């Protein structure tokens, strides 16, 4: 049997999460190669339909990373994302897909190490949850 290699899509806001990911690179921190980052101006741009599309397409995990609460570059966008991620979690739980496959993280653009930590944490979590139900 082929070894399971998770593929996780990460929606990162330009001002914090994406910048933190860049910083993790400048710091040459090593983390799991399983995430694919999609840049958005603000996590508030992401809607429930985007998150569901990812799951539908066979994402093993979905990660939304935005600014620290209270520090959103666009004031409150990350709070909207938080609510939407929670909605999708509940929805997935209801339909028999583990709600843990989707998660919201908050960090500042200065937190390179935290980004690497998040990438590793999510990858470990998805490894335990195994392949997406839609690809079985």
């Amino acid at each position: 049997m082929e070894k399971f290699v998770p593929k996780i899509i990460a929606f990162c806001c330009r001002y914090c999460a994406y910048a933190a990911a860049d910083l993790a690179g400048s710091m040459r921190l090593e983390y799991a190669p399983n995430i694919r980052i999609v840049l958005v101006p603000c996590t508030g741009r992401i809607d429930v339909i985007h998150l569901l599309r990812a799951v539908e397409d066979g994402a093993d995990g979905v990660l939304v990373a935005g600014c620290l609460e209270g520090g959103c570059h666009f004031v409150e966008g990350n709070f909207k994302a938080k609510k939407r991620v929670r909605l999708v979690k509940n929805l997935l739980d209801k339909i028999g897909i583990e709600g843990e496959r989707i998660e919201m993280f908050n960090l500042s653009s200065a937190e390179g190490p935290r980004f690497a930590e998040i990438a590793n944490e999510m990858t470990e979590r998805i490894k335990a949850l195994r392949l997406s139900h839609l690809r079985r």
Partner: protein
Amino acid sequence: MDEETAKREAARCLDCGICCECFQCAEACEARAINHDMTDRLFDINVGSVILALGSEAFDPSSLDTYSYARFPNVVTSIEFERILSPTGPYEGHLQRPSDQQEPQKIAWLQCIGSREINRCDHPYCSSVCCMYAIKEAVIAKEHAEHDLDTAIFFMDMRTYGKEFERYYDRAREELGVRFIRSRIHTIEEDPKTHDLVLRYADENGDIRIETFNLVVLSVGLEASKSLVELAKRLEIELDQDHFVQTEIFSPVETSRKGFYVCGAFREPKDIPYSVMEASAAACEAEKVLSDVRGTLVREKTYPEEKDVSSEEPRLGVFVCNCGINIGGVVDVPEVAEYARTLPGVVFAEENLFTCSQDTQESMKEVVQREKLNRVVVASCSPATHEELFQETLKSAGLNKYLLEMANIRNQCSWVHSQDPVAATDKSKDLVRMAVARAHLMRPLSEPTVSVDDKALVIGGGISGMTAALGLAEQGFHTYLVEQSSELGGNALRLLNTWRGDEIADRVKKMVHQVEGHALIDVYKECSIKEASGFVGNFQTTISQNGTDIALEHGVVVVAVGGKEYMPTEYLYGEDERVLTHLELDTAISKGDKKIAGARTAVFIQCVGSREPERPYCSKVCCTHTMKSALKLKEMNPEMDIYVLYRDIRTYGQREELYREARMRGVIFIRYNPESKPEVEKSDRGITVTIRDHILGHNVVVSADLVVLASAIVSRDNASLAHVYKLPLSKDGFFMEAHAKLRPVDFATEGIFLAGMAHYPKPIEESIAQAKAAASRACTILSHKERTVSGAVSVVDPDLCGICLTCVRTCPYDVPFINKEGVAQIDADTCHGCGVCVAACPYQAITLTSFTTEQIMAKIDACFIQEFRNCELRIANS
């Protein structure tokens, strides 16, 4: 060989210039950048102003023989330690020590190496930055260490006086376990077998301790380099006794030679934020003399006409960068380029050594034109690095700059997956495929131009506000200066002298006179800011003056509202007229109050209200002010006994000189801990101050005739002003700049700038530098008649709008409004492009031009669906 020949051969080796002129380097360089025939060339350039940003050098501790820096391998300087921690350093970022490349388990930092030192070197000044950088190095070393790392910093005074620095110190000490030992180490000894280092010191109780460390870092200070001292002589620039450029408090960036300005460490050791501020201040002064001829030598760049690609099928070009070995050393770049060629719509794909190099820009232009490309994908570093450069290249090639997409295969791939090249290559292919999918759906976007109102509004009429107003007006820009009280001058009106001895009242009067008399400055007193709207280049602010509203239109705002003195509730303040704050002392001295000169004993208490749980920051100016005042009191009455009760003496930079003088004049310094603060009580003998002396270990009781409290500087009530312009405030109520280090006078909101104590407590010379910097930054906007606004904005489709007002309520900037036609409208000029309204709109009536829903979906699909064909179908159907 005979003796003669042997000597000649030996001499040839000894005179070796190392280069044997084999020209292999010239052949190897692909960019043909090496030319052995190059010689020094002299140029004559005619200029109107000169700015000297010549920096400083790290002190070489070899001359301090008791530290054996030159002999012991594991004694390194702080600069060398930076290289040890750096991924591009000798150990590739692994925490190792020189003698055996093992990871140290105990590291010591010794502070004040080559600073505050007149015995073994001639540097009596403080180098200002070493306390903070040592803490930083300790914290980061702990992060890098694979095992538990013990870090100990040996210091005299911990000088964490900058914005947010005290919190960093607190966190390092309390949460991260960095040890701080107040002791100046005399000698480093070595165990010759292990090359471990032994430090012997006395702790604060007087007990002798001996500790062994694996590595010792010398926190070296900054000094003026010898070659620059000579250069200054040649340029006829006067230097001070520390060989730094001589300037004055009220003109901090002007040298002794007219037209020559100075900034940064060449002026005095300082950290990054203040170097950046001074640099912009120097620019302000340099611009002032040139404002009449602004723009006369500018060459306008011309671009070819933009091709209309809207009816064309997408033709994509993909450029995959090697970035030297940064990407190519991990990712199989040729394989990624080959893969890109197979993707739908890609008509051209190539790999580059450095996609950002000048020659590649030229070749990209050619390729765009030759292959008739109408979309460009660059797989390289982060868009944050070179997106603007590639957009420029597209523009120069006749393509709309928004037809560029980037795939981050460096910062977010090769740099973080270097141990797994196969996975990194797979990920790069995925990222390129995702980028290609989005690029298909990208459309040219137009950037509207708006005219710029070249007037400025400065809020606050103290030294900072007046300096900013003059900085703008002297460059030819009409400025409104709004002040809350009935007179200009602010806190400076209550101050006596600068730490260099200048009389402040006089200089402030001159400044007020200059401001009030200036043709281009309109002063509004007794005013408050009522409301504001607009955006950079086009602001409208309503101020209220004695009940009347006045509407002002301007292009920029400078916030210079200052700070205020904390009114103490401790130490009998307010209960006894002999207990004064610093400002009250200055006023009393200037009025000739007899109780000042007549005092037999004066006690200064530092950190009153600062460095407390409610206010975990340092007010920066108080130690210097106390030294200045103590020296003044000694001058007035040499018989006066003066005590200074302190926690750390923070006379940073060249202010250290005052501390030395105060000690020489017999001022007595007693240190206290926050747990055992001084007690101040009334008695029939005057005021009794009881303090536990840190050397005797006993309480000392002083009968004082005068108690001066170094009271904190606190923020003003900034909440309403912050709300009017949507500006962020820090936890301590000061305004928050866009970036702590690199943008210390900008707000994240374009067109609004910050100066003075509204930013953070600071002395006059720093307020003036920051205010000039704010003026200079504001001029970058005011000096253009028009500006282009980003094309990445939200647009409402009026046919789909359900007038539910969700977007109006959702937008953090109050941009959408219901227009005359009764539907929502978003003006391109004011939209910030976050897209929050797009996601919120229940009718999906709003489109974010640069991150459309289709583009996001295409990226998601491309991420998981290997066969691109399926992806195309999805795009066609949606």
